[in-house]
């Protein structure tokens, strides 16, 4: 059903707003990553591949957004993924207490964007707003026992979320005229 929408003026405006908002959130994520580097001395992902395997932090799925023919399910996955990362970002509040206002603002933007997408899918009516059953434990973080596991976990969440946003940007940009 999406094919009919791509020319629709409202749909195009909806896309432009989401693209801009994702770009804003991506900028905020980069700022928090900078803080994790300067504050926790965790700066590059290659050094954390082993611990990443051990912690097993799941990434929000965007498989519906990779196909050439854009699926409505991709919107649902973006919306649901944003909610998952909204939850995961709470860990950053613990890790960066001196910068809680920045992390708060990031969480607020993430939840706003997710609500916007849900609202816009409803407003456009034709979009299939089904909610995909989440894989087991996708929402919740694994238990992170040591300080190091928490700090490494925070770094990994931000890296995952940055990739999630880049994939979402590519998928939505694909739809703009």
């Amino acid at each position, binding site marked *: 059903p999406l094919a009919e929408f791509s020319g629709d003026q409202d749909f195009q405006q909806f896309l432009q*707003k*989401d693209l*801009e*908002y994702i*770009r*804003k959130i*991506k*900028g905020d994520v980069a700022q928090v990553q900078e803080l994790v580097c300067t504050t926790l001395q965790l700066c590059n992902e290659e050094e954390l591949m082993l611990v990443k395997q051990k912690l097993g932090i799941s990434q929000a799925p965007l498989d519906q957004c990779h196909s050439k023919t854009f699926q409505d399910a991709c919107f649902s996955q973006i919306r649901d993924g944003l909610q998952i990362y909204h939850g995961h970002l709470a860990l950053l509040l613990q890790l960066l207490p001196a910068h809680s206002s920045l992390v708060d*603002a990031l969480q*607020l*933007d993430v939840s*706003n*964007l997710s*609500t*916007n997408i849900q*609202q816009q899918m409803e407003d456009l009516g034709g979009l299939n707003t089904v909610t995909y059953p989440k894989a087991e434990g996708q929402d919740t973080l694994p238990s992170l026992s040591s300080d190091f596991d928490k700090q490494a976990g925070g770094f990994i969440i931000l890296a995952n979320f940055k990739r999630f946003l880049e994939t979402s940007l590519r998928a939505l940009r694909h739809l703009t005229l």
Partner: protein
Amino acid sequence: MGSTVTASCTIQSNRCGGLDGEEIQITWRLDSESMSGSQHKSVEGAEVSNLTISHFNRTRAKLWCYVVWNGTPQRIGMAEIHAGYPPSKPENLTCMMNLSKNSLTCRWDPGLDGHLPARVTLKISQEVIPDCIPQGGQNYCTIPRRSLQLYQKMDIWVSVQNALGTAESEHLCIDPMDVAKLDPPVLKSIQSVPFQTDCVSVAWEVAPTSSHIEQQCELRYRTHEDPGWTLTHHCGFLFGTDYRFQMRCRRVTAMGYWSEWSPGWNFITHE
């Protein structure tokens, strides 16, 4: 304001020790101005004085009731009078999103003063969001980020309520990001263009708070002698002249507000 005020003052001397059997003379004072009422005895034997003030023209006044006792006038009752008008409709409601403070500030013209204590609130359609109460009678209110839903339309209006009624402004239906005022860009470098010698090439950076927004920017210049600034399209400059440049930006869609002009950049075109 301007209407008639009536008041009455009743003394049951039998229940008022010291006034028993005395001749009772009730007098009035509006703030410090003496006034006389019409006094009569009520059926229950109490002394009643009625006062009528037509075209009441003060916004606030205290009305005192006196009776003379032991030769001195005794204050025995008081009423506070507030006069005014129903609130007038607030006009010209506009809002602006500040990207560095991440808040939306709305301003309006309050219209005529109702002279009465009034409750002014900036209302937002989503019930879950608390009203914005302007501080001490100001005509603007700032909605914090946590009460905003970015990139979504919000219905905003002003409501004014006093003892004599309520008035509401027109409703604004806006997405805060569509009324954003961008932060100014920063000029990075200005150079002459080798072959088009009367042109300059400009390098600048948009503000980090709006780097995610597609923007159009304007350049202006002036020499020390110039009275005012001139908008430019990078060409038409004199040789060997000391120019001062500034740039500002706005959404490509022309929605929202121009940023302030950037800090100035001095550049002398070559001979």
